[in-house]
């Protein structure tokens, strides 16, 4: 199960993900979420309600952040749960995306 909520204000948008981030989430992320958030200069991805990210999900996160930043957007990832953080650390997302993405 994967769902999301988008909170927008003037120059910032917060996407709150809910559920598992895996291969099935990619369509939602690319077709529904990206077009909306890429209108904003500052984007926060809130992982507070994400309990599992698999290897495809990791690829998805990296691609999403890369694409948004290539488009000149600032992206932050926040509220990562401990069990998901372990997977991030194993796959070294910090090293890949840079410390500045995490808060």
């Amino acid at each position, binding site marked *: 199960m994967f769902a999301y909520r988008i909170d927008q204000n003037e120059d910032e948008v917060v996407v709150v993900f809910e559920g*598992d981030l895996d291969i099935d989430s990619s369509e939602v992320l690319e077709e529904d979420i990206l077009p909306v958030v890429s209108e904003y200069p500052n984007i926060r991805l809130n992982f507070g309600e994400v309990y599992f990210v698999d290897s495809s999900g*990791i*690829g998805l996160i*990296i691609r999403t952040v890369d694409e948004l930043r290539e488009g000149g957007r600032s992206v932050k990832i926040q509220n990562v749960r401990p069990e998901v953080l372990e997977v991030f650390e*194993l*796959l*070294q997302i910090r090293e*890949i995306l840079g410390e500045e993405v995490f808060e």
Partner: protein
Amino acid sequence: MSILIVDDSMMNLAYFKQVLSEAGYSAIETASSAEQALERLGMSGGRVPRKAAAFDLILLDIVMPDMDGIEACRLIKECPPYTDLPIIFLTGDRRHFKEAFGAGGMDFIEKGAPEYELLARVQSAIRLKKETDIRKSREIGLVKELQLAKRVQKTVLPPPMIEPGIEIHAQYIQSDEVSGDMFYWTRIDDKRCGVMLIDVAGHGLSSALISMSVRSLLDGMVKRISDPSEVCLELNKQVCSLFGGSRDSIYLTAIYLLIDQEAREIRYFNAGHPPGLFFQTDRKAHYLENTGVPLGIRKTIEGASGVFHYEGSGKILLYTDGLVETPRQSIRAGIGQLEQYASRIRYLPNDRFTEKLAVLGQGKSDDVCIVSIQLN
């Protein structure tokens, strides 16, 4: 398009046959009893035919002497070659409907109904049968292809290495028919071996394609450059150049060990892979943690590597994340549990050791690979 009409009334048989012939259905057969129908289907005496007789539809009367249509329908639907063969009941009595549908009938035609109704129902039943046939044969073809692909994939895996100073065994547990996990080892020269385990992100066919293409590079690469830092850089370069143009994020995690039996030294890289576990006699497990990021994500990477030495005998356990990952639970806890269990059974012969660990990998949703290197 072949239709079997079953009715004990000759008049009914002649009527239905005529209506269907006039509508263009040419291959029409008739049976005047349920028993005769079963015989046409190769089912008399309770036999199960190896191949289905070529019917696309049965029109079946319900009230017949001896065996009735409902019983015949039940028998036909229970017979594996005919589970998808549509059966339409011919009836004049609605009281039979509940039982008739319960027996597996897909539709009914009331005797005396107008011709167009008969033809419409026959047409839609036959269309459904054709579609089911096409889908089934595609599915069967796909399953065969996958099984073949699985065998092909297994043929590239190396057989166990059993030599005086070193033994390597592995277990390969596929969740789908094919997987993106792959292990590889080779003797580089008299004193050195290279051992690699990779896990392509994602599952199934696409991951398997990627892992097979990476596999084809390894022999040349490992024998030419062998040093882990350089193998890591080269492998990353190759994966980026092969798949960098894809819109999907394609990457893999890998762990590679270069074992020097003379110097009793192991150099390794671990690119985003779960830590290898090194068990030496009477010591706590040593974790072969990450030395760098997964391969194929960034064009430029550092290519760092680690090194350690060993004395006496020991085992090095490599595995893919499927063995330790349970969705929504801590993967570090999973690794800890694996360490505990593996530590307890570490004195088993190497092949038994991997077999015992493979039991942990059964029934997981992910692919699992386990490689164990026994150093003496």
